[in-house]
């Protein structure tokens, strides 16, 4: 056969025709290559508005401002609807937002006065006591509400006049402000009466410095700066987009490409990609989120304090921090961290690393030949390196004798189970804990929540003292006493706080807030 036959198609013109055809093919490739090259494009030029895109680790679910109990959403709803006040973690003080003044009238009554210079985003009137009462009632009665716990100490809210109201508590409590600030968002009674729950979607108008522009479930939230907010900050972004990005490497790639301007919760192993870049900087802060292991004393084998202590002694936190977290965590000694109120140094009662002691304690508790079988619950992807950390901890526990089964449910399932007291042992973080007494009470005071079901009358008495003390110094002293007692009783072992690493574009100033969130007006963009 001739030389042309090998093409599978016989032609009578042979090479010449084939040449034309192949030229055609080559031309095709060149055109395609040119197209591909044309895709080398920077991302679309920004509109005149300054747009700040921030990554969101958690899933964006409900437009109902009371439907989730999660730090990021609390912050967002405070920016949109407005909260009574907020906690400035950087300056470590409480700042009024919708409220301009508050005082204690008697041990069970706090009087708040609202600002009068605010307007609602649709031009409606500013917040009144009626709105406060409505919001409180809605949180307590809305079937979708997940925020009842923060109001459980309130007996009633009484309007004194349009701009003044009293919060009356069931028992004397010094922590009303810490309970409510940065969390209790106020929604409009008028709009709710007119539109019902649809108001959240169709008329999400509040009094905050940012308006809700778009809420796309499982995707993003868009906020636009409101002209009606009295305090003008021209350097702050005009539009803020919270874009859901659950994969950490995607967040980092996105900030390097300028698809987002702030990549949050960067895990330690990706920090190197952010370094040595002129257009991106690393903003690192300590965190107020305490990472801990919980041991529920009502479930075997955790009912024996020796077993709990053994588990605590088994864990080598230093090597986890150094090798797995690459140094990006601060070890906790006791229930108080350096970023929190009332911290006065490491607790002397905190348990350290001593595997021999752990084995001895287990033997004492009756587990000389092989330890107790336990189920260890942990999340995956919710906290930095959570699953890997748990795997390391699980192995450390096995090395002293525990027989560990690691269970990794999806976050929403795990959180529901923890809240309902169904998980005897788990790894978790408790965020937004500037004032530690709230979180500690939530976990360790009898009856407050079934998360650990720890019940110790001594500790309960201490919590009472904390609550009923109004002098901040005294309160702190009592809180530290609670922390010390917890350290020896170990219903939970406090491990560390992560260092929050953010990848931030060079033209953005991102406040170093240990919650990982930011008061958006404090952000500066060029």
């Amino acid at each position, binding site marked *: 056969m001739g030389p042309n036959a090998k093409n599978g198609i016989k032609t009578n013109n042979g090479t010449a025709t084939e040449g034309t055809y192949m030229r055609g093919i080559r031309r095709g490739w060149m055109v395609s290559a040119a197209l591909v090259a044309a895709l*080398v494009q920077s991302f679309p030029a920004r509109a005149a508005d300054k747009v700040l895109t921030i990554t969101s680790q958690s899933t964006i679910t409900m437009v109902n401002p009371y439907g989730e109990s999660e730090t990021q959403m609390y912050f967002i709803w405070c920016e949109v609807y407005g909260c009574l006040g907020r906690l400035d973690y950087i300056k470590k003080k409480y700042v009024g937002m919708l409220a301009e003044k508050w005082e204690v009238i008697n041990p069970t009554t706090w009087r708040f006065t609202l600002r009068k210079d605010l307007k609602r985003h649709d031009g409606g009137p500013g917040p009144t006591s009626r709105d406060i009462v409505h919001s409180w009632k809605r949180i307590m009665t809305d079937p979708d509400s997940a925020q*009842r716990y923060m109001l459980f100490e309130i007996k009633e809210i009484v309007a004194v006049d349009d701009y003044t109201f009293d919060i009356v508590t069931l028992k004397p409590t010094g922590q009303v402000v810490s309970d409510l600030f940065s969390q209790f968002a106020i929604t409009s009674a008028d709009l709710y009466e007119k539109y019902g729950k649809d108001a959240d979607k169709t008329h999400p108008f509040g009094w905050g410095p940012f308006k809700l522009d778009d809420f796309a479930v499982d995707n993003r939230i868009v906020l636009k700066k409101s002209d009606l907010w009295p305090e003008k900050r021209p350097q702050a972004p005009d539009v803020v987009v919270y874009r859901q990005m659950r994969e950490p490497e995607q967040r980092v790639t996105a900030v390097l490409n300028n698809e987002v301007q702030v990549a949050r919760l960067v895990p330690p192993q990706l920090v190197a990609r952010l370094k040595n870049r002129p257009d991106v900087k690393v903003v690192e802060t300590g965190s107020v989120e305490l990472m801990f292991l919980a041991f529920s004393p009502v479930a075997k084998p955790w009912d024996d304090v020796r077993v709990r202590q053994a588990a605590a002694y088994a864990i080598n936190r230093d090597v986890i921090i150094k090798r797995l977290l690459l140094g990006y965590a601060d070890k906790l000694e006791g229930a108080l961290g350096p970023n929190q109120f009332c911290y006065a140094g490491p607790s002397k009662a905190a348990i350290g690393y001593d595997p021999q002691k752990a084995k001895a304690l287990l033997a004492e508790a009756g587990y000389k030949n092989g330890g107790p079988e336990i189920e260890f619950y942990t999340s995956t992807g919710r906290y930095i390196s959570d699953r890997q950390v748990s795997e390391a901890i699980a192995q450390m526990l096995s090395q002293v004798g525990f027989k560990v089964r690691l269970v990794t449910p*999806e976050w929403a399932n795990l959180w529901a189970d923890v809240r309902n007291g169904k998980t005897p042992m788990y790894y978790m973080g408790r965020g937004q804990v500037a004032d530690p007494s709230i979180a500690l009470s939530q976990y360790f005071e009898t009856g407050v929540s079934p998360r650990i079901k720890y019940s110790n009358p001594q500790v309960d008495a201490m919590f009472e003292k904390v609550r009923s003390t109004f002098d901040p110094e005294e309160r702190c002293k009592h809180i530290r006493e609670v922390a010390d007692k917890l350290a020896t009783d170990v219903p939970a072992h406090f491990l560390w706080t992560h260092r929050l690493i953010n990848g931030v574009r060079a033209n953005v100033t991102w406040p170093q807030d240990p919650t990982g969130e930011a008061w958006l007006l404090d952000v500066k963009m060029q």
Partner: protein
Amino acid sequence: MLVVLLLVCLTIFTMLRLVPGDAAELLVPEDATPEDVARLREQWGLGQPIFVQFLHFVVNAVRLDFGVSYRFRDDVTHLIGQRIGATLELAAVALLIAIVVGLVFGIWAALRKGTLVDGILSVLSIAGVSAPHFWIGIMLVLLFSANLNLLPSGGRLPYGIDIPHVTGLLIPDALLSGRPDLAWIALQYVVLPATTLAFGMIGIIARITRSSMIDAGQEEFVFTAVAKGLSVPAVVFRHLLPNALIPIVTIIGLELGGLISGSIIVEVVFSWPGIGTLLFQAVSVRDIPLTIGIVVVYTSLFILLNVLVDLLYMAIDPRLRTKGAL
């Protein structure tokens, strides 16, 4: 076909109602009272016998009402409607890429039959179906997004770009609104996920094109055409390809399932806001209404696409038409 759809619904419905554990308890707030749980249970009809629940379900499904999602507290139909355009666009672009690139490679290999190029393409096409989608996706992002900074790492559009909603498919919508620049932007975002999804299919289409072209090349009418002096491109496009169409359409029909299931994984890898990622969110928290809704939608889509392929068959193969077969 409708019978099958009904059976599909029954299957998935029964399966999910057999699941151990209680969906109602899962998502009540932490201090919910037993009354709250009971109220939720009644609201979703979880206490009634399965048959009654299924009847309600079918009646509602006909009206496209799949209930309210546990997790997102929003109408399931609304949630799906918002995102199905993204999935359809991804699948459509992937199919387009697979067909175009597959045809090109296939023709090239056929013309170069027996040479090194043919061998390489053959190996590449087998390799293409041997690598898992998520790995290909990760590698492509690493190359094009992280290292070369050419293409975005995920998502569908940046903020600030608004394309008027006509069909829900961004590229056609942009073009229809006279904004080709916006279509270009949307294209950049869809290119990596679509290529990932198309990867295996390119190989399959290339191979089938090649073999059917070679088969057709042996036919008498081709010799005639060549003897009459037709150039190679003309022979290819006017005589060989049309005959290769039938096996190609067959293959596409067979690969539809893979296209749909692959799209779920590609969506998750690229955070593509379609119903694949939504499904993942739903099953992670055992959100039964949303899961059922999405499964029914996917299955209906699959059945519909298969019907379309059958119709396409009839259109291109005159022999089938005369038989009146469907």
